[in-house]
């Protein structure tokens, strides 16, 4: 291998089929096929539909990524794949394809952790892009999407990641989807709530902030809970409808979004302050939410915490972030994964490479 390793990464943990190609930290291709539209009428990701879509999308996505990167598959130094956490049947499509690709090419296989991948997205840069500066470590990372809500302490991208807290029920993105349905807004809920909230008053209704009471903070200082919030919104909407009153969709959306953004950013900043780590990184699709970004920026600045947000195309699930972590592992001298590894839907974040 001359210089930095050329790695292709496959990501199939949820509803996005992602193939990315990187050379070290340089992003060469990031192609994503989403089955989101197929889940729309069900109001959430249907695992079997997602897994079927991965199988159909994977080969065209692979071909397109290779074409965009302007490489030949035989040039690859390694194949990387998400082995977890995620939807088991969906992960298995990527794992099966990645093993076969690696074996047929005679390259090593690196099976890596999806959540660590979200952090790794930050180190990637386009050849011609503005320099965003290096990711400094340690950093706290807040990863929020339809599938996960996790707060991590990252000391090293290759071998030292700690889980500070995570959701004990719904993921934040799921809460957006469910509240959108309550309000009669289409799937996916995030952008719909964001749009509706723009005209609303975020302080119109005081919705609960999960796990923020002093007694909850003892056992769940950095954990999240959104099911109580979702129920509170449902109860509020029902009460109005039962009384024959019109539901102020903009105010409900804005107040709900404020409750989510408040608790996410408050806990993330608290972790930075408590741990003396003045750096926060955001990742996951919920980063697209305008209020989450703004509130994070305000609070980070007030707390003297520097905030990093990778470009949105690298925040949502993608294969480039998986390739990026594998490239880091290779450069740090770690060997490949065993060919007998499986998909692990609950792979702990402490396991960077399976």
């Amino acid at each position: 291998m001359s210089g930095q390793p050329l790695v292709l990464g496959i990501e199939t943990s949820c509803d996005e089929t992602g193939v990315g190609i990187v050379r070290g930290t340089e992003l060469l291709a990031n192609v994503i096929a989403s089955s989101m539209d197929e889940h729309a009428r069900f109001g959430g990701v249907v695992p079997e539909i997602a897994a079927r879509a991965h199988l159909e999308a994977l080969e065209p996505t692979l071909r397109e990524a290779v074409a965009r990167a302007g490489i030949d598959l035989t040039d690859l130094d390694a194949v990387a794949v998400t082995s977890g956490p995620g939807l088991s049947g969906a992960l298995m499509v990527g794992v099966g394809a990645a093993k076969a690709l690696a074996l047929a090419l005679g390259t090593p296989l690196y099976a890596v952790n999806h959540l660590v991948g979200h952090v790794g997205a930050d180190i990637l840069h386009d050849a011609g892009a503005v320099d965003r500066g290096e990711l400094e470590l340690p950093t706290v990372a807040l990863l929020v999407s339809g599938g996960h809500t996790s707060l991590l302490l990252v000391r090293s991208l290759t071998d030292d990641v700690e889980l500070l807290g995570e959701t004990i029920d719904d993921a934040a993105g799921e809460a957006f989807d469910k509240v959108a349905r309550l309000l009669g807004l289409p799937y996916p809920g995030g952008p719909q709530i964001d749009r509706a909230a723009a005209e609303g008053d975020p302080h119109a209704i005081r919705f609960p902030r999960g796990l923020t009471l002093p007694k909850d903070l003892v056992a769940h200082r950095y954990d999240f809970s959104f099911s109580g919030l979702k129920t509170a919104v449902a109860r509020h909407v029902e009460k109005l409808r039962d009384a024959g009153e019109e539901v102020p969709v903009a105010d409900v959306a804005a107040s709900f979004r404020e409750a989510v953004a408040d608790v996410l950013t408050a806990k993330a900043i608290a972790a930075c302050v408590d741990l003396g780590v003045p750096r926060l990184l955001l990742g996951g699709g919920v980063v697209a939410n305008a209020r989450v970004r703004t509130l994070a920026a305000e609070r980070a600045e007030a707390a003297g915490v520097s905030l990093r947000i990778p470009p949105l195309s690298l925040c949502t699930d993608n294969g480039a972030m998986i390739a990026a972590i594998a490239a880091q592992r290779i450069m740090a001298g770690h060997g490949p994964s065993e060919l007998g590894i499986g998909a692990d839907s609950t792979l702990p974040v402490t396991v960077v490479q399976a």
Partner: protein
Amino acid sequence: MLLAIDTSAGTAVAAVADDGRVVAERSSDDTRRHAELIGPFLAEVIAAAEVDGARLSHVVAGIGPGPFTGLRVGIAAARAVALARGIPLLAVPSHEAVALRLVEGGVAAGRFAVITDARRREVAVTVFAAGLPLPAVVEPAHLVARAAFAPADGVTPYEAHEIPAASLAHAALARLASGAAFPEPRPLYLRAPDVTLSTPKRVS
């Protein structure tokens, strides 16, 4: 040299030379570890197939029917090998491999049914008429409740728990020789995704 992969029942991988000689074969009837086993099986079979510098010419994928999660692993792997090597992918219904082996072994004659487990108390059934080089499909693969399964008069049922990957390659060779068309390399799910449209429930 053909590489055949099937994960519609257990996991089965074989390398078969153009003359039909079985060069290497690995299989397991474990119905839960497809994603794990496909790695070592492929590694061993590809290494054995290419030991003397021989190259793979085709990949053969068993397209089921079979329980979905496992079935997809083999098809995804087969597509990936074909893409990596720039060689054609040939799809063969998995029951055809079982049928061919039964006929070649002199076990089945006349009309017979190949049955595999489809979970949820159902079986997948394909009815064949014995014949070579390939048994003819009389009734394509379909699902039947296991308790309700009753073969038609003169049809002998054979239940299979493993798909012989070498026979999958033999079926592909027979099709190649006869010029018959191959099906699309898509899984035979035979069942719609399991989803229910729920309406939000009242909380108070």
